[in-house]
């Protein structure tokens, strides 16, 4: 057996040398996209990813500006924008005004969506089951454990509800969806507020946890007697059985783009420091009570005026021309009044080298 060790080593070294040379040679070469136009990097929430990707794609066709959005999760998005490794961060849960000021950040709502409780009960069709906030909270607290509980029957005198135990399903992974849902329960139930609170992940009193919307919907669809909560678009696409919720004004409403918009319309964006507005449990007779906005977070002091301008132009374009695309994907575009407010804020607060960037 002839084993040409020296030759093997020689080849290895040549390969290594070639790779090194190629690797070094690559550094000054710019990517084609960079030559063509600006690349803007963003990272954060998974919930708005489909619409951001759609907008980015359309915008690139139009202008050549490339928006690179990584849906790594809101927590990661906030960390990355604080560290300055991306041009914008995205989060489903708004940062508080103090947190924004600490890092010199500005946040504004980009798009809205709703969270929908879904159930799996034999013979119950979408929109059949009516639920009050108290019942929803009691179920998630583990106090109501059967579907034929008198409290549920009282709300639904016309339905025949089975003597079946309720399986509570929640998100296992930290998520903005959970943040919005628990924020709602926190607002409407004192007991929830004192026992659990709200956040992207909480200490659930009962239930099983599914990973992602797909995990929750898989459990709900598989387990008879289950209740869970998913994003509206997800419930719609999977034809899940949503419930009608009683809102703050005492009406039972269906989740729909119109009822999410109704919730947003009543909100007082103007006086909220840092746009810390949570759209859960809003007044208004048509308001869906579990609505939420997804936020963009950027630095107030921008390093590169040109790049910052390009980024704002993209957001402006998305606000003004992206509404149809958003609706097609079951997101809710921001109302015009809010967009005007946001752009007013850009004018006032965003600076590069001491000069205003917008418009």
């Amino acid at each position: 057996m002839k084993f040409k060790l020296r030759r093997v080593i020689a080849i290895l070294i040549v390969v290594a040398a070639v790779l090194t040379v190629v690797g070094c040679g690559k550094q000054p070469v710019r990517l084609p996209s960079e030559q063509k136009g600006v690349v803007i990097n963003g990272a954060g929430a998974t919930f708005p990813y489909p619409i951001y990707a759609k907008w980015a794609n359309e915008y690139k066709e139009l202008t050549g500006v490339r928006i690179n959005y990584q849906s790594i999760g809101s927590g990661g998005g906030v960390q990355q924008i604080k560290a300055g490794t991306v041009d914008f961060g995205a989060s489903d849960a708004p940062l508080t005004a103090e947190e924004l000021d600490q890092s010199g950040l500005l946040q504004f709502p980009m798009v809205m969506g709703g969270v929908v409780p879904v159930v799996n009960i034999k013979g119950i069709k979408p929109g059949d089951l009516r639920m009050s906030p108290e019942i929803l909270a009691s179920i998630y607290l583990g106090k109501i454990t059967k579907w034929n509980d008198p409290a549920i029957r009282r709300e639904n005198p016309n339905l025949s509800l089975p003597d079946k135990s309720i399986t509570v399903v929640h998100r296992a992974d930290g998520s903005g969806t959970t943040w919005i849902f628990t924020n709602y329960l926190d607002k409407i139930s004192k007991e929830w507020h004192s026992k659990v609170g709200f956040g992207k992940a909480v200490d659930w009193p009962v239930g099983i946890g599914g990973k992602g919307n797909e995990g929750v919907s898989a459990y709900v669809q598989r387990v008879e007697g289950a209740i869970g909560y998913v994003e509206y678009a997800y419930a719609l696409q999977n034809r899940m059985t949503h419930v009608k919720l009683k809102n703050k004004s005492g009406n039972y409403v269906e989740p729909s783009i119109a009822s999410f918009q109704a919730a947003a319309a009543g909100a007082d964006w103007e006086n909220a420091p840092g746009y810390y507005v949570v759209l859960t449990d809003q007044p208004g007779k048509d308001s869906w009570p579990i609505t939420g906005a997804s936020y963009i977070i950027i630095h107030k002091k921008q390093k590169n005026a040109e790049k910052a301008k390009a980024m704002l132009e993209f957001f402006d374009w998305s606000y003004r021309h992206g509404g149809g695309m958003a609706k097609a994907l079951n997101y809710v575009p921001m109302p015009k009044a809010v967009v005007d407010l946001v752009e007013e804020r850009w004018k006032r607060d965003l600076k590069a080298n001491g000069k205003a960037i917008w418009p």
Partner: protein
Amino acid sequence: MEAGFEGEREGNMAVKVDSSNEVVMLGRGRVNKWSANKLFKYICAACCILVLVLMAGLIVELIANSTLSVRKLGLGFLISDEWDPVMGKFGALSSIYGTLVSTLIALIIAVPMSIVIALFLVELAPKGLSSFFGTSIELLAAIPSIIYGMWGLFVFGPFVADHVGPFLHRYLGFLPIFQGTPMPVGMLTAGVILALMVLPFTSSVMRDVLLMVPSVLKESAYGLGATTWEVTKDVSIRYGIRGIIGAVFLGLGRAIGETMAVTFVIGNEHKISASLFAPANSIASTLANEFTEADTPLYLSALVELGLILFLITAIFQVVAQTFLKYVARGSRP
């Protein structure tokens, strides 16, 4: 490096392996045999050191990033099963428990099965069938874990809830581990899915181990009138016991850190319950679920500490395995 390279180009060297398995170089020209030898040695050493550096880096990083939680939560982290990110209370007990129990279930199912499979393939099956089954089992090992997870969630989980669970509940319901309502996801489903994932590894290693049993030994036993069962029990397994135990620890290593498949089917609850039907969690599933959205420093640090604990558990198992193997080696060989 450069000098070695020059030398390589000048000389035209052949290598041959002599009878004592020593590589002897037949050099010609300027090259002496030591430069190539040394170079080879250094390359090998560098690769080894790289592993060590990686290990050390990992440990340093894990410890550095978990100091906050170690300082704030102390030992309570290890003995509490409360996990409340809102209040900033973190306890690792349920994750540790889930990791160990799901791994245990997996091994209880997978180890006897893989011994039987390996014995069938080596001792009992016709040759064609044996190689067919052998290849099939190795193919199972190549399936990505997320596929096992999805299959567990959509197909196997419901099957457990509808058939396996009720059956166990009916006949073994007096045991606390089979009480409660069978659910499609939970510790039992996770354990069984893990067993299926471990099976290809353990059984193919065990098959190789049994194949290495010298036929002289087996034939002598048959010659003395031993039955297949006796040969298997007293010759094959005893001869290959080290390899078999090695295979078990290989499976354990795979099961203990498995992430995606477990996350899909374990139910993800930070609770310890006696019933195997109840949802639970493991260290790996907690990390997979919560790392992306961990938004406070303490939360993140607690998750890193969980990673550190998993690392330590794996290390402890390694040490136990090594010690055990040494002990067995002394006991079984004359």
